[in-house]
C-alpha cells in the first residue's frame, strides 16, 4: 500500500514541477525547476527498476544540463544587455494555437499508449537466453554493447557530430583557440578548494561505474558523464584551462571511443559478423569498448557544455 502512495505522490510532484518550470516567469527559476524535475524523474526510474537509466538521468539532468542552461542563460542575458531589445509578449492567438496543438498531441499520445497490447512484443526472452555468450551479467550492458552494438556505435558518433555542430558556429578569427569564455581566476578559494578535491573522487566513482557496469547497473555512459562533470568542475573552478580545439591529443580523445568500437566491429567481420564479439573474449572486448567510449563521452560532453571557442589562441 505505502509504495503505491509514494509512487502517486511522486507522479503528482513530477507533474507539478514540470508545470511550474513552464509557467514561472524568471529564467533561472525555470532552470532550477527543470533540474529538480530531472532529479524526480531519476527517482521514478529507480521505482521502475531501471537503475541504469536513473544513473544516466541523475548525471545528465541534475548535473550537466543544469550547468549548460545556466551558461546559456548568462550568455543570453549578456547579449540582451548589449542589444537592449524590449521583451515581446506572444500574441493571444499564438498562445491558443500552441495550447491546442499540445493538447491534441497529448491526447493522441494517451490514446496510443492505451491501445498498446497487454503483453509487449519484445526480444527480452531471447536476449536473456543468450546472456551467457556476452560475458557480462548486466542485461543492459549486454544489449547496449553486444546485441545492439550497432545503435550504440551510431549514438557515439552522433555525440561527436553534435560537438562538431557546436564548433561550426565559431567565428573564423577564433578558430583554433580555447573553447569557452575566459574565466577570471576565481577570487573565491572555496570553489578552488572544491574543484581540487572533488575531481579525483569523481574520477574514481566514474571508473567504478564503468567497471561494475558488467554485472550491476552502470556502464560507459554513466561513468563517462561523471568524468565529464568532474572535468567541467575543474574548468569552472579555474584550475585547468580547456585545451585548444586544434590540439591533437584532444581530438584523439574525442574520437577514441567511436574509433575503437568501429575497429573492434570491423575485426569482428573476420570472425563472422560486423560488431560480433567472440564469446571467449567478449567480456574483455566489452570492457575495452566501454572505457574508450567513456573517455570520448567525457571529453565530448564537457566540451559541449563549455561551448565553442570565443577567443583567439
Amino acid at each position, binding site marked *: 500500500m*505505502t509504495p503505491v502512495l509514494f509512487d502517486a505522490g511522486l507522479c503528482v510532484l513530477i507533474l507539478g514541477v514540470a508545470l511550474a518550470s513552464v509557467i514561472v516567469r524568471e529564467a533561472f527559476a525555470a532552470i532550477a525547476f527543470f533540474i529538480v524535475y530531472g532529479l524526480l524523474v*531519476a527517482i521514478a526510474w529507480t521505482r521502475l527498476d531501471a537503475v541504469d537509466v536513473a544513473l544516466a538521468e541523475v548525471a545528465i539532468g541534475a548535473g550537466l544540463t543544469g550547468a549548460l542552461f545556466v551558461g546559456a542563460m548568462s550568455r543570453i542575458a549578456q547579449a540582451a544587455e548589449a542589444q537592449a531589445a524590449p521583451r515581446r509578449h506572444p500574441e493571444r492567438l499564438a498562445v491558443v494555437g500552441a495550447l491546442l496543438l499540445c493538447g491534441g498531441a497529448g491526447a493522441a499520445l494517451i490514446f496510443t499508449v492505451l491501445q498498446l497490447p497487454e503483453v509487449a512484443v519484445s526480444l527480452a526472452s531471447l536476449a536473456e537466453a543468450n546472456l551467457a555468450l556476452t560475458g557480462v551479467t548486466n542485461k543492459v550492458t549486454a544489449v547496449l554493447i553486444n546485441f545492439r552494438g550497432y545503435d550504440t556505435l551510431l549514438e557515439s558518433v552522433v555525440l561527436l557530430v553534435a560537438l562538431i555542430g557546436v564548433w561550426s558556429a565559431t567565428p573564423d578569427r577564433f578558430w583554433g583557440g580555447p573553447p569557452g569564455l*575566459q*574565466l*577570471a581566476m576565481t577570487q573565491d578559494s572555496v*570553489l578552488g578548494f572544491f574543484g581540487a578535491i572533488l575531481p579525483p573522487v*569523481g574520477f574514481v566513482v566514474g571508473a567504478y561505474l564503468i567497471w561494475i557496469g558488467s554485472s550491476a547497473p552502470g556502464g560507459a555512459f*554513466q561513468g563517462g558523464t561523471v568524468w565529464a562533470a568532474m572535468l567541467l568542475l575543474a574548468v*569552472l*573552478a579555474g584550475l585547468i584551462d580547456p585545451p585548444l580545439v586544434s590540439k591533437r591529443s584532444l581530438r584523439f580523445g574525442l574520437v577514441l571511443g567511436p574509433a575503437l568500437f568501429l575497429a573492434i566491429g570491423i575485426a569482428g567481420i573476420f570472425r563472422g559478423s560486423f560488431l560480433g564479439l567472440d564469446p571467449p573474449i567478449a567480456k574483455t572486448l566489452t570492457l575495452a569498448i566501454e572505457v574508450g567510449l567513456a573517455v570520448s563521452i567525457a571529453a565530448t560532453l564537457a566540451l559541449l557544455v563549455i561551448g565553442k571557442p570565443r577567443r583567439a589562441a
Partner: protein
Amino acid sequence: MHDLLFGFAIAILASIAASLVRVFSGPTRSDRVMGAQLLGTGGVAILLLTAAAGGNWAILDVAVVLALLAAFASFALFVSVATPKNQSGDRDVAEGT
C-alpha cells in the same frame, strides 16, 4: 520494515515538496539555489530509503552520483565571468533577480 521505510520516504517527499515553494518564490537566485539544494539532499535521502526498502542496493550508486553532482548548477551560477570586451568587469551571475 518495508512499509515503514516507504512511509518515511513519503514524509521526506512531502517535506521537499514544501521547499519547492522557496524555489518558486525566493526573491533572489541564491534562494532558489538553496531550495534546489534541499531538494537534492531530500532526493538522496529518498533514494537511500527506497534502496533499503526494496533491497535493491544498486540504487545507492544513483545516490552517490547525485551527491557528487547535486551542487553543479550552483557552481556554474557562482563562477565570475570576465567578458572579452570588459576585462575590468567581474560579473557575478548569482546576484540578479
